[in-house]
């Protein structure tokens, strides 16, 4: 299809990159009529006069110039495209080579139109060109439109496509009616009618279905997020406040723990989409582990996490060692709360579990503390990490867990360690 020459391949619109094909834009600053020729010339990298002259030449040669100009004008993007996610297509050759190519194409078009204009085929050329153009516009644009959200540009393109498509179809039908040779009347009439139908289907089907489904999807999405924001604001103002109040004012430990759990679940739902994802990262995983300890021992645990990373077997072991440390603090320390702080650093993961409870003398580790050795220190060391327990009588306890981060998970020989499939 010759019109392809005019309609440049779309390129990425990230600023004016002269080496990448982009949809030419109507140039309103340097224009004789509508600025279409100037826009095309700028994109090809040649002087506007060549394009203008070629349109005139083609117009003389059987009216092609007028048709092509009209198509180009209707199709060219008139707004700034800022976010079209197309693959960039490099121009590859120099502007002078492009000028040569352009001249050859125009020359070919002139010759072709003269050829067809004098042959008996000529009466079919017009309908074919019109319908072909309609099909090309319908196909090409419907593909482009799928790539980006409904925006200013698409609205322009839809109206342009409707106008151009309708015009072309009308022209096709009119051209068909002037086919008067009896032989061509039979074959040509059928062919043109078929082309009209196919063209109409191709032009309008993507517009109608695409437009309808995109508008519907967008509206549905917007309503959903608005509803959610409203609900979040409302719940925040009412239920969360009340739950916080209950925790402060109630003397019943069971009620306090219930309110705390409800508050945490609600807050997770409101503010942290990621925590609802079963594919937990380190942050959400730690929060979840601590939540179970909080519920089990009815003690508030303040979990502070800086940074986040994916969970693998080693990280899972760290999470469970942290959980054990927090459970120990909740069981034995007698403190009113436990502080858990974790930080994801480039080379190491650190977790600190701290209480200000009764503490113990780490040198006199009783037999009941064997669990600490196994479930905290042993577990973390098997995964290449270190654990340190700082405690003294009356000064509280702090457990420090450190796990070096491995760059490559597949290098980890301990991947199938039973720790990571252990359930709590």
């Amino acid at each position, binding site marked *: 299809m010759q019109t392809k020459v005019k309609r440049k391949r779309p390129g990425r619109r990230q600023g004016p990159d002269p080496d990448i094909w982009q949809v030419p834009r109507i140039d309103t600053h340097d224009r004789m009529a509508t600025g279409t020729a100037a826009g095309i010339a700028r994109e090809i990298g040649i002087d506007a006069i060549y394009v203008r002259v070629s349109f005139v030449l083609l117009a003389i040669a059987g009216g092609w110039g007028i048709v092509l100009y009209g198509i180009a004008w209707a199709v060219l993007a008139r707004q700034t495209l800022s976010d079209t996610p197309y693959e960039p297509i490099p121009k590859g050759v120099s502007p002078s080579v492009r000028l040569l190519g352009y001249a050859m194409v125009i020359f070919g078009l002139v010759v072709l139109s003269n050829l067809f204009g004098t042959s008996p085929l000529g009466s079919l050329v017009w309908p074919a060109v019109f319908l072909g153009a309609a099909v090309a516009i319908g196909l090409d644009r419907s593909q482009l439109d799928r790539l980006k959200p409904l925006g200013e540009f698409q609205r322009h393109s839809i109206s342009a496509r409707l106008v151009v498509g309708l015009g072309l179809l009308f022209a096709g039908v009119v051209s068909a009616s002037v086919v008067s040779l009896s032989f061509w009347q039979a074959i040509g009439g059928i062919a043109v009618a078929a082309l009209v139908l196919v063209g109409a289907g191709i032009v309008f089907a993507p517009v109608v279905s695409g437009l309808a489904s995109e508008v519907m999807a967008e509206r549905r999405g917007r309503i959903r997020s608005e509803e959610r924001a409203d609900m979040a604001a409302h719940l*925040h103002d009412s239920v969360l406040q009340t739950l*916080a109040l209950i925790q*402060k004012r109630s003397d019943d430990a069971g009620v306090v723990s219930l309110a705390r759990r409800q508050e945490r679940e609600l807050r997770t739902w409101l503010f942290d989409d990621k925590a609802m994802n079963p594919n937990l990262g380190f942050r959400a995983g730690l929060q979840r582990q601590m939540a179970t300890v909080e519920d089990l021992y009815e003690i508030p645990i*303040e979990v*502070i996490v800086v940074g*986040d990373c994916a969970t693998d077997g080693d990280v899972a072991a760290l999470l469970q060692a942290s959980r054990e440390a927090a459970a120990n603090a909740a069981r034995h320390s007698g403190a009113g709360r436990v502080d858990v702080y974790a*930080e994801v650093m480039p080379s190491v993961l650190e977790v600190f579990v701290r209480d200000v409870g009764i503490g113990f003398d780490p040198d006199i580790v009783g037999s009941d503390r064997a669990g600490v050795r196994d479930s905290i220190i042993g577990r973390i060391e098997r995964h290449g990490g270190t654990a340190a327990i700082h405690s003294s009588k009356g000064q509280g306890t702090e457990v420090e867990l450190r796990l070096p981060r491995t760059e490559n998970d597949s290098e980890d020989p301990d991947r199938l360690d039973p720790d990571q499939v252990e359930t709590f």
Partner: protein
Amino acid sequence: MTEQTRVVLVDDHALVRAGVKAEIGEAVQVVGEADDVEGAIEVITTLEPDVVLLDVHLPGGNGPAVIQGVKDADVETCFLALSVSDAAEDVIAVIRAGARGYVTKAIDGVDLIDAIARVAAGDAVFSPRLAGFVLDAFAGEIPLAEIDPELDQLTNREQEVLRLLARGYAYKEVASRLTISVKTVETHASSVLRKLQLSNRHELSRWAAHRRLI
């Protein structure tokens, strides 16, 4: 303190205000209350309290709007944010607007009175949660650096102090752990706050609004 600290409570829930008042009423003088942005600005500019306990979320705007309004009226007071909100952006936004600290509503009365006294004395109050948020912000987890390349980085010492605060250490404990004075810990905390507040406020609110849209 010979004279009791004068405090204004800003929270849209009468129950919460009553609860807080009952807890701190003995130690400080609650001189006024407000339940929305406009009312809060009016009460604060009229009464000029020492400390304002400010809810992060309010009808008619949010905490930062109150702080800005009071600043525009040229009234000097100290803000302490008090909230159940866990959204890091909101907390950082209110700190950047000028609040001297952030505590959650789960804080007990004694700690809250202590925090009010600290803010009144011009110091910063870092709950473990705030310390975590601030570390996150400077680590780029909350992308402050992107919108604000002028944001000074924290010094190693400031990071150490923040980490210990996030681990649940009190100022006193941080001081003995790092073998520095409590006064030095306070200086570090205040300088972290200043670094957050110095940077461009307008950009941040735009960024926060953008984040919530996503």
